[in-house]
């Protein structure tokens, strides 16, 4: 790791101010940034630690409205009883990110700021039609995830939280890469008042995306059987050493079936 200056921010305003130093980066759980710094793929001059900012933490559920603070850990999301009662699918998703140690540190804000094409949360937020709240504005998930490791965030902008309306039904299923546990393909399905939304992670060349053929089939009948014989195009899907685009296209349908079955269970 190259030399770096560490700063512990006491508030969001303080963090925004500190981030103006040199080539500063925010540090949340560090589960992506620190490994990247160790291998010198990232070399910020300054780190602004967000983990001691109380206003960025915690989960509130009021009726069907869910708000999750940006520095809330995966373990906290996985274990939150109130959240589980309105949207168990997102707890299930969080409980299957990486491993217990990663979940104790990694945060939702860090995950969606990074927008790894194989990360789990982007699929949930896109399918749930979530709003990403920053220290400057609110961004709809549809506009937020803009490509591989790309988001609508501007320099120095902090994800303070995410908010969504818990849908009547939701489910998530991923085929984890056997080595990394990241999604080789993960599908989040949600059936809410605006109909059915289906988001796919781990498969798209441009990151998370909505699958229209699957949404159309599930809009007719929200049941795994409705996906019999449905296929999704392999164009635009990733081919790498783990799987070909065709294999991923098949996985999208298989994971969607499992996600719907979980949502209906």
């Amino acid at each position, binding site marked *: 790791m190259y030399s770096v200056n560490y700063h512990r921010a006491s508030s969001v305003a303080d963090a925004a101010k500190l981030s103006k130093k040199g080539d500063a980066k925010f540090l949340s759980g560090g589960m992506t940034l620190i490994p990247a710094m160790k291998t010198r793929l990232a070399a910020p001059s300054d780190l602004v630690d967000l983990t001691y900012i109380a206003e960025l933490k915690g989960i509130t559920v009021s009726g069907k409205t869910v708000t999750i603070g940006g520095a809330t850990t995966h373990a906290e999301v996985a274990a939150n009883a109130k959240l589980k009662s309105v949207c168990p699918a997102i707890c299930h998703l969080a409980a299957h990110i990486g491993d217990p140690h990663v979940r104790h*540190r990694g945060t939702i804000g860090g995950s969606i700021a990074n927008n790894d094409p194989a990360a789990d949360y982007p699929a949930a937020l896109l399918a749930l039609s979530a709003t990403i709240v920053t220290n400057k504005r609110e961004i709809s998930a549809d506009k937020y995830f803009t490509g591989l490791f790309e988001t609508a965030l501007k320099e120095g902008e902090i994800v303070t939280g995410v908010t969504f309306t818990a849908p009547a039904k939701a489910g998530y299923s991923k085929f984890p890469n056997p080595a990394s546990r990241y999604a080789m393909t993960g599908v989040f399905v949600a059936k809410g008042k605006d109909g059915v939304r289906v988001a796919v992670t781990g498969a798209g060349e441009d990151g998370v995306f909505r699958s229209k053929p699957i949404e159309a089939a599930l809009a007719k009948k929200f049941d795994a059987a409705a996906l019999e014989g449905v296929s999704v195009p392999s164009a635009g899907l990733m081919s790498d050493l783990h799987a070909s685009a065709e294999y991923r296209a098949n996985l999208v349908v298989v994971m969607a079936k499992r996600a719907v079955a979980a949502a209906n269970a």
Partner: protein
Amino acid sequence: MSDVSLTVNGRKVSASVEDRTLLVHFLRENLGLTGTHVGCDTSQCGACVVHVDGKAVKSCTMLAAQASGSTVVTIEGLADGADLHPVQAAFKENHGLQCGFCTPGMIMSATDMINRHPQGLDEATVRAELEGNICRCTGYHNIVKAILAASEEMSKAGKGKAKKAA
């Protein structure tokens, strides 16, 4: 440089370290606690697992400066004098190690896992919970056996205590 102060295995320690110092290096090099190991560069192997404020974390993926103010327990802090912690005893009893390189991380992960599952553990849960700990020797079988045995032992001990208190 950062001034860091932590409580490690019950002892208050302070030092001035480079900001880039990883917690694992602080433990091993500044404090001489070499029980915590480094087995990879990719945050995947779990040989470095310690407890920070009661939670298992990978000390290779956290700066010492981030941990300042926290309470840390390492493998050296588990035993009660000459009496092994029940998880350590179960690893010994069940031959849960061969070369021993992964063992400190396995044991710190196991104690965290058992603490989070007071209702008890089954084999599938133990295997899923060991996702972040790699062992190149044992094939995991005896590690799983040791954790299940320790979990049972600790819940018996827990019940015993509860009875006494009642």
